[in-house]
């Protein structure tokens, strides 16, 4: 079959056909749009900005940690750096990323709809996101917050001297953006599927976003109330978490982690959905075990709500609660493992092509697996007690969030870029960037497993001399990683003007979105499609050729 699946001879549509980008010009037509595709682009620009802002804070952290002494900044300032890094990356990049950009753009197209169920609420979601971001940026500009993104009480509610209330309000507002997006997706998937698009014919990307939306809707409100209580305590000095009045700081942690653990599944499930789309296309093969992958997404969403106490093993919760959460945390790995097995089985005897999106698939599967397995270490209370609040934890979640989620995000960008923009990017450069990112990532975070296990605490700006070699490797890796992230910015923007025109389906991929022109017209489908095929209907003939 083909070595590369890009079919650049598909110049069937001349550039300049009426599509969602050129259908209406001017700032007002973009800022007041209700087209889900335009809203996706509004989000793309916003979250890319926040990604680089969060990256800037990471750069400062890694610079400080080049040397054992706390010499670049005071401890207080360092606290603000890691807090802002976490807050910006989690709330303003990772949580929205794939759902707000690719979910928004693709879900209606993947199910054969003209738009989401509530287009105006979709736009409102973006404005709420921006409003929340403005509040949080105000907190940053006014000196930052130093509580950690986790806002633990009583430090956040009583003792911190930083802009806690302002940041809390910002995060609270942004939570509503998440809630409304999730609500929109849930109703859309239930009510707007085209004729013949049954639940079990939907792309797994849609299943993944459905599961993500369940978490957004069920978990975010509890974060909201926990933040409101902290803000109330701070502004009006009412002591809800104040031990002097009999209050319990652990109440905050329970409410906070009730959301924030499922939140990590908000960050990874969409990436898993992306991987399902990419692995099938670039193996030219149906997904192995469609039903298992679909239900495992739901399982992760539901089950993820039962394990939050594993963040609190050393906080003072009851030993019996810790025991229960530990046991449940081991089990939550199972649905994720099922997915990894199924993706691997999909590749088996498939016809693999090594286009850039597929490279991100390989990166994801390897790095997510490592990150996930270290999660099992941490589920064991006895081990967690030793590595809690060390760099082992930092490495664990960065393997999943960066090695997993961000690779999934970049894979999505490289796969759907031709659809979204109508242009192809230079494949040589994209492969090079992927390699740089992969090397940079591992050099940054693998040493952190080691140095964390050896005892280096997190959130400290100084450390003992013997840890320096690991930190120097990590900072070197971070520089390479940062450079790696800049390269796609350059060639992707370049491709907008100079890239080859992509046809409707440069990858030869299955899925309704690939049956439209690139870029698609505003209404997506001139006539509502009627679906008769299963998902991932890659040619049986191709499969036979490779001996399945």
């Amino acid at each position: 079959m083909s070595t590369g699946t890009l079919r650049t001879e598909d110049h069937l549509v001349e550039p300049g056909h009426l599509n969602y980008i050129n259908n209406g010009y001017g700032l007002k037509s973009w800022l007041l749009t209700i087209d889900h595709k335009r809203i996706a682009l509004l989000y793309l620009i916003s979250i890319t900005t926040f990604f680089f802002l969060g990256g800037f804070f990471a750069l400062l952290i890694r610079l400080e940690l080049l040397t054992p002494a706390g010499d670049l900044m005071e401890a207080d300032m360092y606290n603000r750096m890691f807090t802002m890094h976490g807050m910006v990356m989690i709330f303003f990049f990772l949580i929205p990323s794939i759902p707000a950009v690719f979910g928004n753009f693709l879900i209606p197209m993947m199910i054969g709809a003209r738009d989401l169920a509530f287009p105006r609420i979709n736009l409102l979601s973006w404005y709420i996101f921006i409003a929340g971001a403005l509040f949080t940026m105000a907190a940053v500009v006014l000196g930052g917050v130093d509580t950690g993104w986790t806002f633990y009480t009583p430090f956040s509610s009583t003792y911190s001297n930083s802009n806690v209330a302002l940041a809390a309000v910002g995060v609270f507002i942004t939570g509503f953006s998440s809630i409304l997006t999730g609500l929109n997706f849930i109703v859309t998937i239930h009510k707007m599927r085209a004729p013949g698009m049954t639940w079990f014919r939907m792309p797994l990307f849609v299943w993944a976003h459905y599961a993500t939306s369940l978490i957004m809707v069920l978990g975010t409100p509890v974060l909201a109330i926990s933040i409101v209580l902290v803000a109330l305590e701070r502004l009006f000095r009412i002591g809800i978490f104040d031990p002097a009045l009999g209050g319990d700081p652990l109440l905050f942690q329970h409410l906070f982690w009730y959301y924030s653990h499922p939140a990590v599944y908000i960050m990874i499930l969409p990436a898993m959905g992306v991987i399902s789309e990419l692995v099938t296309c670039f193996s030219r093969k149906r997904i192995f075990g469609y039903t298992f992958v679909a239900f495992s997404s739901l399982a992760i969403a539901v089950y993820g709500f039962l394990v939050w106490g594993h963040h609190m093993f050393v906080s003072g919760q009851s030993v019996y609660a810790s025991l229960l959460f530990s046991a449940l945390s081991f089990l939550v790995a199972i649905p994720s493992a099922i997915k990894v097995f199924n993706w691997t089985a999909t590749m088996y005897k498939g016809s693999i092509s090594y286009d850039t999106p597929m490279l991100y698939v390989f990166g994801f599967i390897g790095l997510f697996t490592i990150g996930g397995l270290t999660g099992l270490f941490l589920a064991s209370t006895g081990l967690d007690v030793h590595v809690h609040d060390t760099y082992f934890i930092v490495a664990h979640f960065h393997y999943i969030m960066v090695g997993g989620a961000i690779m999934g995000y970049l894979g999505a960008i490289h796969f759907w870029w031709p659809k979204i923009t109508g242009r192809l990017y230079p494949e040589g450069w994209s492969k090079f960037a992927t390699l740089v990112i992969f090397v940079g990532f591992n050099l940054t975070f693998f040493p952190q497993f080691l140095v964390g296990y050896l005892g280096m605490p997190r959130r400290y700006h100084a450390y003992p001399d013997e840890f320096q070699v690991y930190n120097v490797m990590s900072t070197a890796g971070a520089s390479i990683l940062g450079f790696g992230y800049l390269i796609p910015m350059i060639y992707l923007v370049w491709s907008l003007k100079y890239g080859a025109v992509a046809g409707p389906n440069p990858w030869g991929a299955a899925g309704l979105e690939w049956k439209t022109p690139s870029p698609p017209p505003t209404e997506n489908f001139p006539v509502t499609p009627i679906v008769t095929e299963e998902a991932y209907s890659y040619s049986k003939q191709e499969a036979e050729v490779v001996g399945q």
Partner: protein
Amino acid sequence: MSDSEHVLQHHFDDLKQQHEASTLGMWAFLITEVLFFGGLFAGYAQYRIRYPGAYAAASHHLDITLGAINTAVLIASSLTMALAVRGAQTGRRKATAGLLMSTVALGLVFLGIKAVEYSHKFHEHLVPGPSFSFDGPRESQLFFSFYFAMTGMHALHMIIGVVLVTIIAWFAWRGRYSPEYFSPVEVTGLYWHFVDIVWIFLFPMLYLIGRH
């Protein structure tokens, strides 16, 4: 009167789909509200279990009569709201608008009584914070923190509800709704009933602790 072609949004196939989507969307939103208030109820429960005496002592300072009247007022407003939805469903323009305004009126009565209660608490120095002063266990302040957080959050939702119902009443008066298209009325009704349900739990949990 109402032109069903005019109210069908472009991305829906028919009014039935639009109606079902609106209703489902409001239910999804109400679930987020269940979890939002749920967090407050969870914190309330924790401290009640820990400090039963302090909670009881604090609860005695709440006015059962006003609380009970408010409960009856809200239940009545749910009745008028449900009848208003029925009015829209059966095409009775004036009855619908009238019932919606009755709902608003009852909501305002509730808020008025709440304001009276709050001002009493203020004068008795029972608002948590620097001016709090209570002759009893120190943990009672936690009760009052939750009292104000929960009833305050509830009152905020009531205010939003009052505004929404007023707007819907105006549109109803202008003849916007009909048996073919009344989902805004129904969806507003769902919201209103939810706020009533929160109070149904708040009243016994806050006002009726250790009253024997």
